[in-house]
Every structure is written in C-alpha cells, then in structure tokens.
C-alpha cells in the first residue's frame, strides 16, 4: 500500500486529493501505466508526461525511480512558486 497525492490540475482531473493504492509497481512509470489503464480520468491526468512532475517521500524525483520503501508518491504540474 502506498499513499498517492495529487496537486493542482492533476488533482482536478483525477477528482480527489489523495488515495491509498494497492500496487506492485516497481517504478513511478509502472505506477503511472497501471493507474492510466485503470480509468480514463487517470489517463487524462497522466497523458502529458512533459507537464508532469513526481515527488517520492516529498523529494522531487524521476519517472524511472524505484518505488521500493517509498511511503508517499505525489504527482503535480511544474511548480509555480515565488
């Protein structure tokens, strides 16, 4: 089980801010594929990979990073702080 969090338009497209997911995905990319195959709203949120960012346990990460020992995955658009 892994906590998955969504922000900004990723959250809006998926329709919820966070969920707990039962998965055997080995990497972030595997998790994205698994969720995208599950429902259209996930496929829509994850369609434009170039506009997607991921953080693993609150650290910016890459799509090919392994999920082993990860508690929290967050998906969001490029940040617009400042």
């Amino acid at each position, binding site marked *: 089980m892994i906590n998955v969090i969504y922000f900004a338009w990723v959250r809006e497209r998926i329709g919820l801010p966070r969920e707990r997911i039962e998965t055997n995905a080995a990497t972030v990319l595997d998790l994205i594929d698994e969720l995208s195959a599950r429902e259209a709203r996930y496929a829509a949120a994850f369609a434009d990979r170039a506009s997607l960012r991921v*953080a693993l346990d*609150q650290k910016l990460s890459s799509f090919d990073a392994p999920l082993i020992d990860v508690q929290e995955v*967050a998906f969001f658009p*490029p940040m*617009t*702080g400042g």
Partner: protein
Amino acid sequence: MRIVVQAAPLNLGAETNTFAANAKGAGAIVTFTGLVRDNGGTLTAMEIEHYPGMTEKAIATITTEATTRWSLTDALVIHRFGRLAANEPIMMIATAALHRTNAFAAAEFLMDYLKSRAPFWKKEISASGAKWVAAKDADETALNRW
C-alpha cells in the same frame, strides 16, 4: 534562517524591520517581494495550493544552500498559500550579508529556485473563469546560471 509558510496576510514592513534589527554585523540587506499581478484589472483573486511538508523542506534546502554559498549572515523566506487578492504580497525573501554583491546574488538564486523547485501552484480567478498559471520555460532556464 527563518522559513514561514502561511495563509495569513504578510506584513512586509514589520517583517523587514524585524529582519534588519537582527542583522547585526551585516552591511547589506536585499529583499524581494512578489505581488499578485492584477492583469490590467481583470483578476478577481489568486488561489495558491501547496504541498504541506514538502514545501518547508524544499525551501529549507534552497535557503541553506544560498546561505552557505554566499556566506549570508541571515535569510528569510515567507510564502503564502490560499486565496489572495490583486496587489497583495504573495511572498517575500530577505538576505543579509557583509557586502551587497553576495546579498543580491543569494536573493536572485533563492527566487529562481523558489519559482521552479518549491511546490506551489497558482490559479488565477477572473470573470471569465479559473486558470492554472503555466510554468515558464524562462524560469526553468534561469536555474542554469547557478
């Protein structure tokens, strides 16, 4: 070093005075304040979403790096989230150093990194609807100079 992520309005003047009063030994203070642009009067409000927990960590990492790299005597970052009106301050930073060159460089570095590496997302609300602010290529490119 002080880092604050808050919904409450930001009192620039009070924060600036407190920062300066604690800057004993420094010779230069630079502050940057980001305001909600009113887009020529069309903006109703700005909503800022953030990632509690990661936000503070990301800002602390960036600020610690700036402090070490430019020998800052002190640094401050305050960033708001929630609903803001046009012309309100969104965030401020302050850097204190012995000389002006370091205070300026550190402030620009902090701003470049906060723009693209601190987990905030801005949404502009206007009469015609709501729109997420897109990240600018220029902001990502700005990181290359450091």
